[in-house]
Structure formats: structure tokens, C-alpha cells
């Protein structure tokens, strides 16, 4: 009896091992697996880090000085000294507008003729016009412009002169990203994309491929159990996902000197949790569609695009409309992004790690059990 049970267990392990071995050969021989698993993450890393930058530096700005007082020149000097701006002095507002429309400058700072007088009265105004086609840059430029004026006010304050009125200095220091490098944000966010690609997209594709090529039909009529087939698919891509993680973390540290302020162990654990979630989605989608084309489209829409847009990786969730904010809670990437950004830039903040990790673990368990349920040894 014991021997029989042992025999059964060893038969099961052998089957799983055989499936894992088979899948591993396929990963190494199929250029598309390597492309999605290794080359694409590396390309994304380079592309996002070098090509896509939210940093705003040397924004060309037209300075229209309609007042020649010392105060006016002082306020303008804030822009000339700032590394964030390249000041272009112009005579008239009309000329400045022409430059703005021609995109020669991205912003206009207009210091009106009565500036000095109104400074004395305490209701001075400076007009700042920003080219709004690139909303992101525009918003940041605006904040910097206010900063530049703040610098001037601070300088005046240091000389014992308090300037009240519209241009009030705003605290715009960026927490945890003092250097204001967007790669600090982007690289951790990139890990989400890599994990999503490997976990969900690649898995969905390879499972759907087995349905399409009819390889499952032959495999089903053997002693193999559905759970074993799933495990045989999960393990290799789980490992590949961890390789992707290692490459991304190494790339982040070595290429972009992004600090990892939290612990590597916790980073690995939460990444594993997210991988399980992604694998679950991939397996579930492919079991339901059985077609590579539909599986890839669906995975892109359900996982990759939300991971990019609704996770807080590119766009701050807090600045989204409330409805969208609510929707982001459905997507697992959101939780993983907050975990990653916290771990990389802030450290082991348990108040962030625990709830987010718990959500991922719950989602993983749910998706995996659904995937097991959806995988049946049936055709049609």
C-alpha cells in the first residue's frame, strides 16, 4: 500500500519534471520566448530610461520685461539663474507670443509695467503662459516658474524685505526623489512591465499555442493530470520572471544608479507574489480563448496596458478622476507599483508593504484556483 502510494507520487513528480523540462527546452529554442522574456525587458529598460524622461531642464522661456525697475529685473533674474530655464529676453508681448506659437519657447513670463508699484502695494502679479500641448511638461514648468519667483522672493526676504502678493513661493521639493530624476520612478515601474510580459503575456501565448497546434490533444490522453500540466507551465515562466527581475534590478542599480532603500528579500517576495498573479491571469486567459491571437490581445488589454497607465507607474493615480481611481483597484499592477516605488525609494515601510502584499496574495490565490478550474482535459 505504501509502495503504491509512493509509486503514485513519484509518477506524478516524474510527469511534472518531464513537462518542466519540455517547457524549458522550448523556452530556449523558441526565439519569441527569449525575445519576450529577456530582450524586450532590456529594450524597455533602455527605452524608458533614456528615451522617456519626465525631467524638465532648460525650458526655453521668453521673458517680457515691461517694467524696468529693480524689482522686475530681480524677479526675471530668478529665471536666468535657474538651470531649469533658458531665458530669452524679448521686448514685446506680441513677439513673445509669436515665439510661443512657433514653439521656439515653451513659456512666457510677463512682468507687467506696474510691477514695482504693485509690489509695494502688496498685490503684484506676474503672468506666466505655458504651452499646454505637453501637459506634463507644462505643469512641471509652471511649478518651476513659481519656484524661480520664490527664489527671488527668498533672496529679498533674506535682505529683510517681505514681499507679499500673488507670486507666493510654493514648496515644490520632491520627496524621495531629491535629484528629481525620473529614472528613479521609471525603473522600478519597469519591473512591473517586465513581470507582466513574462508572467501573463508569455504564459498566455505558450498555452494558447498548445491548443492551436493540437499538442494538448495528444498530451491529454496520457496519465497526466490537468494540475500537472498547469504546474509544468507555471514553474519555467516563474523562473524566467525571476531572471527578468534580477536583470531589471541589476540594470536599475548599475546603469541608472537607482537606490534600493528597502530590502532585496522583500522585493523578491513581493515580486514572486505578483508573478503568481500574472501567471494566473495568463493561464486563465489562454484556457478560455485557446487562440494565440485573442490571448495576446486580451492579455495586453487586461494586464499590460493597465500596468502601464493605471498602476501609478507613469501617471500619478491621485491626479486621475475619481472613477478611474476606483478602477485602478481592480488591477494588480497598482499594488505592485506602490510596493516597488516604496521599496526602491523609501525603504521597508510596513504600512505600505503589508496591505499591498496581502492584496496580491489574495488575487494570486483566486486567479490560480480559477485557472485550475478552467483547465480541463476536454476538447471543444
Amino acid at each position, binding site marked *: 500500500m505504501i509502495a503504491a502510494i509512493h509509486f503514485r507520487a513519484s509518477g506524478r513528480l516524474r510527469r511534472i519534471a518531464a513537462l518542466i523540462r519540455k517547457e524549458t527546452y522550448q523556452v530556449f529554442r523558441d526565439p519569441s520566448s527569449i525575445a519576450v522574456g529577456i530582450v524586450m525587458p532590456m529594450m524597455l529598460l533602455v527605452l524608458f530610461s533614456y528615451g522617456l524622461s519626465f525631467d524638465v531642464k532648460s525650458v526655453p522661456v521668453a521673458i517680457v520685461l515691461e517694467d524696468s525697475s529693480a524689482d522686475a529685473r530681480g524677479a526675471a533674474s530668478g529665471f536666468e539663474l535657474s538651470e531649469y530655464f533658458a531665458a530669452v529676453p524679448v521686448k514685446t508681448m506680441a513677439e513673445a507670443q509669436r515665439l510661443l506659437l512657433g514653439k521656439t519657447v515653451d513659456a512666457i513670463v510677463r512682468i507687467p509695467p506696474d510691477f514695482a508699484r504693485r509690489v509695494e502695494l502688496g498685490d503684484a502679479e506676474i503672468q506666466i503662459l505655458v504651452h499646454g500641448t505637453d501637459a506634463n511638461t507644462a505643469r512641471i514648468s509652471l511649478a518651476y516658474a513659481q519656484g524661480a519667483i520664490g527664489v527671488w522672493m527668498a533672496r529679498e526676504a533674506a535682505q529683510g524685505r517681505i514681499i507679499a502678493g500673488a507670486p507666493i513661493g510654493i514648496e515644490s521639493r520632491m520627496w524621495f526623489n531629491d535629484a528629481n530624476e525620473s529614472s528613479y520612478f521609471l525603473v522600478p515601474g519597469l519591473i512591473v512591465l517586465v513581470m507582466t510580459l513574462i508572467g501573463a503575456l508569455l504564459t498566455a501565448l505558450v498555452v494558447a499555442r498548445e491548443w492551436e497546434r493540437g499538442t494538448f490533444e*495528444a498530451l491529454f490522453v496520457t496519465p497526466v493530470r490537468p494540475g500537472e500540466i498547469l504546474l509544468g507551465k507555471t514553474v519555467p515562466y516563474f523562473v524566467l520572471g525571476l531572471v527578468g527581475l534580477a536583470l531589471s534590478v541589476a540594470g536599475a542599480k548599475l546603469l541608472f544608479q537607482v537606490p534600493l532603500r528597502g530590502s532585496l528579500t522583500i522585493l523578491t517576495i513581493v515580486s514572486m507574489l505578483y508573478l503568481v498573479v500574472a501567471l494566473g491571469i495568463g493561464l486563465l486567459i489562454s484556457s478560455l480563448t485557446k487562440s494565440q491571437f485573442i490571448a495576446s490581445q486580451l492579455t495586453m488589454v487586461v494586464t499590460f496596458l493597465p500596468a502601464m497607465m493605471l498602476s501609478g507607474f507613469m501617471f500619478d493615480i491621485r491626479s486621475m478622476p475619481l472613477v478611474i481611481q476606483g478602477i485602478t483597484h481592480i488591477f494588480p499592477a497598482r499594488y505592485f507599483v506602490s510596493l516597488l516605488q516604496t521599496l526602491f525609494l523609501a525603504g521597508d515601510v510596513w504600512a505600505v508593504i503589508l496591505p499591498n502584499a496581502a492584496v496580491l496574495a489574495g488575487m494570486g490565490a483566486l486567479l490560480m484556483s480559477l485557472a485550475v478550474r478552467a483547465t480541463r482535459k476536454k476538447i471543444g
Partner: protein
Amino acid sequence: MIAPTPTSPVSVRDIYKAFRRKTGETVKALDGVSFEAKAATLTALVGPDGAGKTTLLRLISGLMASDAGELEVVGVKVAADPQAVQDRIGYMPQKFGLYEDLSVQENLDLYTDLHGISAEDRKAIYPRLMEMTQLGRFRERLAGKLSGGMKQKLGLACTLVRSPELLLLDEPTVGVDPLSRRELWEIVLKLVREEGLTVVVSTAYLDEAERCDHAVVMHAGKVLAQGSPEDVTAEAKGRTFILAVPDGMPARSLQARLFQQHGVIDAVPEAGQVRVVLASAGDTASLAPNGAKDAPRPVPPRFEDGFMVLFHAVAGQAHRNAMTLDRPQSVDPNAIAVEVHDLVRTFGDFTAVDHVSFKVRKGEIYGLLGPNGAGKSTTFRMLCGLLPASNGTLRVAGADLRTSRAEARQKLGYVAQQFSLYGQLSVDENLDFFASAYGLRGRRKADRVAWAKRQFELDQFSRLPSGQLPGGFKQRLAMAAALLHEPEILFLDEATSGADPMARREFWGRITSLSEQGVTVIVTTHFMEEAEYCDRIVILDAGRNLAEGTPAEIRSHAAATGGEEPTMEDAFIAIVEKSRNGPAAQTAGNAA
């Protein structure tokens, strides 16, 4: 607990299975099917496309559940415990799911592991499988790089790693050349006869059914008849005759005429004559007015004849299949339609086509025959201007393909091996698209599309997405699309692969009438008996031209090596084997 193998490893009682198509209608795939497969016998499921053969095998293997009826396999009720059945049987689906990026050995290893074969047993099994399949030399080769026949043999080997109690084979020889087909069957027969394995095989090749112990003839989800192949053959007793063809007339012309005649169930060209099956025994009177040379000579029936009798009873008289061209082309027996001289095509250091030359006259039906990988498809692609030649000259319809490819293309129609129309588009939309692609517009386009739909009887399916057409109609649509621009030459690449006997006869009826109206037709085929429809054929192997001539001339090759009244298939195998064994083997053979 393992149930002992019963005397009938497969027992199917009154099984029903229906599917719902996407368009909403219900298709009865199996409509009250019953049969038993006795231990250590070979059972064949025979029938046209859509008869329900694949569904039946999937039900037996527990991959599908039936709607009603009882199904016991190796003593287990499949519906209750499919896994218990799957642990004990072997199943080879139609396209065996080999992992193409795994080597032969790795595929085998996967299946031995899945079946839990010990390392010790493996040592005994592998040499036996390698000997049986002759795959020993290719162990390291990736499965995707094997020829069609070798893939099927590897698939078979994978299901045989652990001696199953029952082996299910779903159309194992579709797309496999005659040589590999013969080898595959030798393996299967040996398993049944020598090792007492129970095998259920589905097939559309009627000569294969002739070799089994029990034949189940299926049509539209129902069993038409079952019994020994002799029982099926006996249906045509006293009804089969051979008719000699008048001089100067191709056998196919007489065959086409007879095929549609009332009182005639079946007619096929055979060895330059025509074989007919009559609706009622001895009613040779109906054959009289066809200009046959001599009186019909009675011959013993074959399985295929019996099958056609059974089939005729449910399907009725054959479809009208003669075609009328709007503008028949001039028939000039001396005009050359296609001229190939010293054609060479290399891929890297591999020579796919090696100095091949032939000429095809206008209005001829010309056949390219050869095993998998012989270079047929490569030659075809060059003839159609889809692939440039490495060397040699190619003239198609008077145009040199090397210099004026577009001009030549306008004069030829091409039907690819795989269904290459747009499955999501309806029949009308596909025809409209292809007509535009050939540059037809306005009135002429409308006329041509109407002509194609009329000639191919596609009107009833106008709005149906072409992917959902029944098998034979897909092929008709493909041919209709290729004829829209009234080409002078029609290329058909394995057009009848996987088609059932009815569809194939219909297809050849169309080809015959096209050729009578001056269209030159070049075909490749795996069905050797179809070579009988051709005026001349060329046999290719390993890119070389082995033999060329009329079917009678080709058949004489086999006669020379012995055997009485050789079939085209015998001749083909004799020619290819002679060339493969080389001069040395030949001398040895002569000495013996």
C-alpha cells in the same frame, strides 16, 4: 483497481453528440452510433468529411462527453472516469501534437516520462520503436524538421512507448506520401497481428479500410453499414465492370460521361480503361450508348465499389460537375503551355529542385507526383512565380517567368494546398475581393462572380463565412476564386488532400471538363489512382525527375519489376525505391 481488458475494448452503444455552430444551427455530429471493437482486431471508421469519425474517437478517448448513449472503453465507463481510460490507451490525433521544437528523442522521452516508463523498460522499448519506425538516424533532429511521413511515425512511436491496451488513430495517413503510408500501415498491421493490439483507425482512404477486420462505414453521423470489409465489398457484387476506351479519347472523358449517367453509381479511370459500378446488377444496357469500344467486362468488386454503393443509397446521384466556360479556349494540341528547362532551386546548400525539365501542352492535365519533400511544392511555387528559380528557364503561357512575372501571373490560376481564402469573409466577399485583385471591375466582375457561383453551386452559401463552409465547398470556393480571371493554366497543389471519395470524383469531373475546353491543368497529388486522370505525369524524388510519361507508360515500370497488373501506386513505389536504393542495390536485386 484496474479493470481487466474485456473481449471488446471498445463498446459504443447508441451514442449521440451535437454541436452548435457559431451561426446558431445545431449539427448532429453523431446520431445514434453503435459499434464494438473486438480485442486484437483492427477496426476502421470509414466515411467522408464530416461523417463524425473524429468526434467518435474523441469521445472514446474521453476528450469529449457524449449527449446520450453508453460508451465503455477497456472495461471502463468513459464518462464516469476519463482519466482511467486515458491512463491505459494510446491516441494519435489527426495532426499529432508533436512538439516541433523538441528533438525526436526529447519527444519520446516526454511521453515515456508521462507514462511512467522505468529507465530499464526504456532500454528495451527504444530500440524496438526505432527499428519499427526507422527513425534511429534522426534522433537528434527537431520534430519540426521531419517530413510528413516521419512525423506521423514519430507520433505513432510516442503513443506506443507504453504498450497501450487500445490504440486510436485519427486519419494517420492524411498528407502522407504512398511510401510512408505503406510503411505506417505495415507497422499498424504488425501491432495487431503479432502483438495482439486492438486498433481503431479512421480513414478516408478506402484501400486502407480493405485491410482491416471490421469496417464501420459512416455518413453524416450515422452508421451506414458495418461488418468485415468483404461484407462491404459484397454490396457491389455483380455490378462492377471495366469498359475499354475508344482510341484517341482520354479515359477520363468517358469516365466523366459515365459518372453522371443514370444507372451508374461510380466510374473511375483505371489503367487506361474505365471502371464502373452499376446501380443494379447486370444492367449493362445503360452503358451501351457511351461509345465504349468493347462490351463491358465484368470484374470482381473492391471495397471502394461497395462503399460507393452504400453511399449512393443515402447521398443519391452524383452532383452535376461539368463546367461551362464563358469563353472556351482554343484547343491546339501542339501549343506548349508550360515549358520548364533545367530548373534548379537551392536553399543554402540544400538542392530542393535539381535540373528538372518538362513540357506541358495546351489543354493537358499534367500531374506532379512524388513523396513528401520531393520538390513538388517548390517546383509549383516557381511555376506560379511565387519563388524565383536559382537556375534554368521557365515559360508559362508564353511568358518568361524570370523577366515578365506579372504578365504570366495574369494567365494562371493557383489553388494552394491549404485553404487560403479569408475565413471570416463570406463566399460573396471572398469572390468579390479576388475578382478585384485580378483587376476585374464593373459589369465583367459581376458576370464572372455570377459565373463562378453558378458553376460551383455556391449560391446557397453566399452569405456564409467561408471558414464555416463544409469541406468540399471550401475547396470549390478556392477553385472558383482561382478561375475568376479566366486563366489559361490552372495550378492545383494537393487539392484533394483530405477530401473524401465523393468530393474527389466531383473535383476531377470539373478538371476534366476544364481541360476539354482548353484549360491546361497542372496538379500535385498523394492519391496515386488520381494520376489516372492525367494525360501525362512526372515522378519527382529528392528534387530529381525520375520518370515521365503517360499513366500507362509509368505503370509499365512496375510491370517490368514483376507483379500482375500493377496499380499506379505499385509503379510509383517501384520507381522511387529503385532510385533510392541506387545502382548497387539494383545489381544485387538482379543477381538474386
